[in-house]
């Protein structure tokens, strides 16, 4: 047989449930006030009815008063209700997704690369799954923590109130056409380029791409730098993806392009210092010696040209940033506006 609760017991339970969810420093005082107000309400109803309330009526009053969690929530500091405010949330959400997508892409590429000819190839998918699961926990935790600190500092120091309209980026003179096709071509081209290098560098069966009949192989320098080359390719594709999805501002994409080009410049310089990029392969034929030398000269020439282009582009971007920070206008059609393409 179940014990039927009295009105007093119902009220006690309700007030206690609310109290446990209240801020610790004020819980007794607020709970006492909630009890007092509810008792006044119950007395008022009883006076209207001319009798004591039944347990069902008491239960209905408490239910109407609201769930303890919601009632207690109203007494919490409204400014600290959420870690991330609605104003900051869209940027937080974009950052979280972008970092997760970039990390997973890079990790998958590294895993695919690691699978090539390693003795522990069978464990790679397991490691990949574990890393992705860990990232799914740690990346959101880290990003949330950073944004929560930002939110706290903003709440405390009100940085956003110190902005000046004059400091906003200028509107571009020539709007960028909203073409979907060109960036799509970039993405497809990037993937093809990545696959080509993957096959050419690491799959012996595809060695023909180097010298017609598999007589040449990548040098030890190229082989040693395969991971940075892959990462560079992945960053290049992610840049195209950002352009295609329009998730990043033109200014951010421009920064990414410059970063990728600068990294490529460093890699190219290392490759040039390492001497010949191609060496004799397993099916080497001495009659191909001249072809190998020519091919190495051409490759070196292309790398030198790429370095020169990269240096020029980096200098141009540096000059543009310097002018922007000194208050001038570069007059470029991108000009650092915040419009998403």
């Amino acid at each position, binding site marked *: 047989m179940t014990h039927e609760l009295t009105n007093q017991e119902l009220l006690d339970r309700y007030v206690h449930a609310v109290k446990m969810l209240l801020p610790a420093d004020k819980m007794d005082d*607020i709970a*006492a*006030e*909630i009890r*007092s*107000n509810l*008792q*006044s*309400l119950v007395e*008022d109803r009883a006076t209207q009815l001319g009798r004591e309330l039944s347990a069902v009526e008491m239960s209905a009053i408490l239910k109407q*008063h*609201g769930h303890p969690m*919601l*009632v207690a929530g*109203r*007494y919490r500091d409204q400014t600290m209700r959420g870690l991330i405010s609605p104003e900051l949330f869209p940027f937080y959400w974009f950052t979280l997704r972008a970092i997760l997508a970039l990390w997973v892409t890079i990790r998958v590429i590294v895993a695919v690369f690691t699978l090539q000819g390693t003795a522990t190839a069978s464990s790679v998918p397991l490691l990949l799954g574990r890393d992705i699961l860990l990232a799914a926990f740690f990346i959101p935790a880290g990003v949330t923590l950073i944004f929560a600190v930002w939110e706290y500092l903003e709440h405390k120091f009100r940085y956003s109130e110190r902005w000046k309209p004059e400091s906003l980026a200028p509107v571009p003179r020539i709007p960028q056409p909203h073409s979907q096709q060109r960036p799509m071509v970039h993405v497809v081209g990037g993937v093809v380029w990545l696959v080509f290098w993957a096959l050419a560098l690491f799959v012996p069966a595809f060695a023909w791409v180097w010298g017609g009949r598999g007589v040449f192989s990548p040098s030890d320098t190229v082989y040693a730098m395969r991971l940075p080359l892959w990462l560079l390719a992945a960053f290049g594709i992610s840049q195209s993806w950002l352009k295609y999805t329009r998730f990043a501002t033109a200014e951010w994409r421009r920064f990414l392009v410059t970063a990728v080009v600068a990294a490529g410049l460093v890699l190219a310089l290392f490759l040039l210092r390492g001497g010949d990029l191609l060496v004799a392969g397993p099916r080497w034929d001495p009659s191909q010696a001249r072809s190998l030398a020519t091919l190495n000269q051409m490759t070196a020439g292309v790398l030198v040209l790429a370095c020169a282009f990269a240096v020029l582009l980096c200098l141009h971007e540096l000059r543009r940033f310097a002018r922007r920070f000194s208050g001038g206008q570069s007059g470029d059609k991108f000009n650092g506006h915040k419009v998403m393409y």
Partner: protein
Amino acid sequence: MNSDLLENLRLELRRGGLVLAVLAKLRSEYHGYALAKALKESGLEIDENTLYPLLRRLESQKLLNSHWRVEDKRNKRFYRLSADGEPVLDWLLEEWRSINGAIETLLEAPIAARKKKA
């Protein structure tokens, strides 16, 4: 018309008015439930879970004073407009009348124009 939208608009419209009504009513002393009842009788019904935390917030902003006192053999917390709250209430009332007057003018302008045409 979407009822959620209407409800949101109504709540937005009421939000500022509620603070004004509470401050105005608390020129006399009330405890929470009695204040909710008095406002309801004046035609301004406020959800208790909105009113009671609002009283706490206004008190923390030093616009209200409160104290516990026994009434009808029970301990109750009474609120009253503070000395700091009085000029704030006057200022808010002035602002309210100004907004009210402006809206009345806005509403009357098309009526006057129609009369002039006729």
